[in-house]
């Protein structure tokens, strides 16, 4: 494997890690506030659909992006309604949202475009185009770091950079602002927040809202950045991988970045090599493709140590029985 190969794989990892990262940060806000969310997958899927669909209709990827985010937010609010207002089971609500997204996207796609379950292919302004970072060309000659910057890091779509910037931003919000303090508190002990005179409900809804927005970006990136249109079930389990990354990252932003890049890397590798020769034996293709899933289990089982989720996570806040 040459250095150029490595650069290409890294380039691909960033691209494939981006939707995971956005979804993972989405989950981070929600779960830090105490609302577990296995519906990331579904929210990404609706966002992927609506952003591609609206981009196809209007010809503008930005309007598409807005539509995708809006759709994801609507689904996030359903989850909020179920788990915050009506104190339902958060896991079940998440499962329902995933199904709802899987069904609705196909239904609407068929109704709007009559092209089976897909949107028309996007081109031109209906897609995000790649942007070159400053000095990418000038620096490409620098040994080692040059190609890393100009080929792996530069030349992605705007949403990739949004995702990367969202990591320090999330860290800052969480640990340096009032909102972050309250958010972390409400996921640990909503009673403490409530008795401090802050509305638990409002805080959790804002977290779920942010979650919806970020999932929207993740979905929009899938269909208008990574691909050129929506196809049925195009999230392909990314929401669950993002969730695993979140646990792996122990609900911390910087760790989330590395976890998502790791999963991106795995996908990049499995895209690139259909079988993996480990010297002793060869992993057949079917299992190379399943590698992210297998690794998720291995990580959950062994490597995270004890990942302690936010203490109040998964439980609705019940003041009066």
């Amino acid at each position, binding site marked *: 494997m040459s250095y150029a190969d490595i650069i290409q794989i890294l380039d691909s990892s960033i691209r494939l890690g981006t939707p995971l990262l956005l979804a993972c940060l989405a989950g981070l806000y929600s779960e830090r506030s105490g609302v577990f969310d296995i519906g990331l997958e579904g929210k990404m899927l609706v966002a992927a659909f609506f952003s591609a669909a609206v981009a196809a209709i209007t010809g503008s990827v930005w309007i598409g992006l807005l539509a995708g985010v809006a759709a994801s937010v609507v689904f996030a609010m359903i989850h909020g309604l179920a788990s915050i207002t009506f104190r339902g089971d958060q896991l079940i*609500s998440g499962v329902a949202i995933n*199904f709802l997204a899987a*069904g609705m996207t196909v239904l609407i796609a*068929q109704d709007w475009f009559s092209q089976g379950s897909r949107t028309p292919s996007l081109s031109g302004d209906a897609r995000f185009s790649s942007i070159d970072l400053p000095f990418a060309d000038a620096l490409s000659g620098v040994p080692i770091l040059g190609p890393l910057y100009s080929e792996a890091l530069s030349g992605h779509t705007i949403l990739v950079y949004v995702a990367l910037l969202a990591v320090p931003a999330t860290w800052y919000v969480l640990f340096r602002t009032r909102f972050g303090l309250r958010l972390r508190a409400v996921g640990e002990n909503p009673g403490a927040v409530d008795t401090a005179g802050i509305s638990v409900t409002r805080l959790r809804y804002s977290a779920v809202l942010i979650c919806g927005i970020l999932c929207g970006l993740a979905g929009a990136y899938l269909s208008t950045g990574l691909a050129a249109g929506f196809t049925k079930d195009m999230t392909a389990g990314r929401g669950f991988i993002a969730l695993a990354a979140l646990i792996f990252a122990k609900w911390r932003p910087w760790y989330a970045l590395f976890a998502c890049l790791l999963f991106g890397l795995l996908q990049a590798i499995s895209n690139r090599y259909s079988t993996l020769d480990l010297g002793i034996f060869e992993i057949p293709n079917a299992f190379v493709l399943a590698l992210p899933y297998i690794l998720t289990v291995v990580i959950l089982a062994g490597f995270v140590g004890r990942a302690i989720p936010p203490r109040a996570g998964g439980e609705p806040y019940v003041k009066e029985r």
Partner: protein
Amino acid sequence: MDKLPKWVDVALIPLINLALALIVSGFVVALIGEDPFNALSVMVRGAVGSTYGWGYTLFYATNFIFTGLAVAIAFHARLFNIGGEGQAQLGALGVALVCLALPWPHWIIALPFAILGGALFGAAWAAIPAYLQAKRGSHIVITTIMFNFIASALLVYLLVGILKVPGSMAPETARFPEGAHLPSARDVLAVIGIPFARTPLNVAFLVALVCAWGVWMLLWRSRLGYEIRAFGQSEPAARYAGISPLKITMITMLISGALAGLMAINAVMGEQQRLIQDNVLGAGFVGIAVALMGRSHPVGVLLAAILFGALYQGGAELEFETSVPREMVVVIQALVILFTGALDGMIRRPLESLFARRKRSTSGVPAE
């Protein structure tokens, strides 16, 4: 202090939730430009309007009884088994291996072994997530989802490799021998002179009914069931009573996986008669909705499974007759899960305060 009368809890609330799900589904149908009432009548006629409809409805229901019971029994131990899909896939592998292993002389002989094969493989697939949950605290929801993906990878590996018929294109096994074909409802009913359409409904339906009865006996008549229910209510209490969390988690998930695996008796041995790749048809997931609707009680699961069977069959007809895609069924299913599972409080709490007010005005419960 029971907040609600039992009939409200087990009948009224699920019915209201179901009605809400159907109303919202109706709106969705209207939104995509079809007449919801027409759609409903197509679905109802398609599902129960003929022996053909009934055959398919009950055929699907059989699948859902197995997976619904699988989810339900896990729910009792407060384990959320989303892995029914993968466990059923593995069960299918087990059934297929048994059916292909010998030139079975008669289905009566093949069936018990196939049941064993399906149950064993399904259980084995549930065992790892169960162990990881019990020993390492790995969240079973995520591990079982991952195991669904891994199961399909495994099946693909086998179906494009050693299990494939040499020279054949499709990733599927050879057809099972004649002696491993379960008699269909048409065959059985023909013996007593009742005409029935050619459908895949087969004797596995009876196996499913026996399983439902067995789960009921297990949960409410056996010590193991008592322990499962106690563990599901409170883990510290279970330990206090000498119930091993590891043991119960493992056993419950093994039973759950076995039940999911048994679905293959119906789908693979009863209908497909060979192992194909996507043999489960999403029934593992439907099981979640079925268990929620059925309040995790075998009788409820039975009724909910038939409802969902009708929904599936009706949905298939809907696609033939109108322009509503079959995914409509997925939407209805999602709405049922949403309303019965997650938005339950929306109906329950107003009802609770309604009944509490009635109760207080009649009896006046003091603080103590």
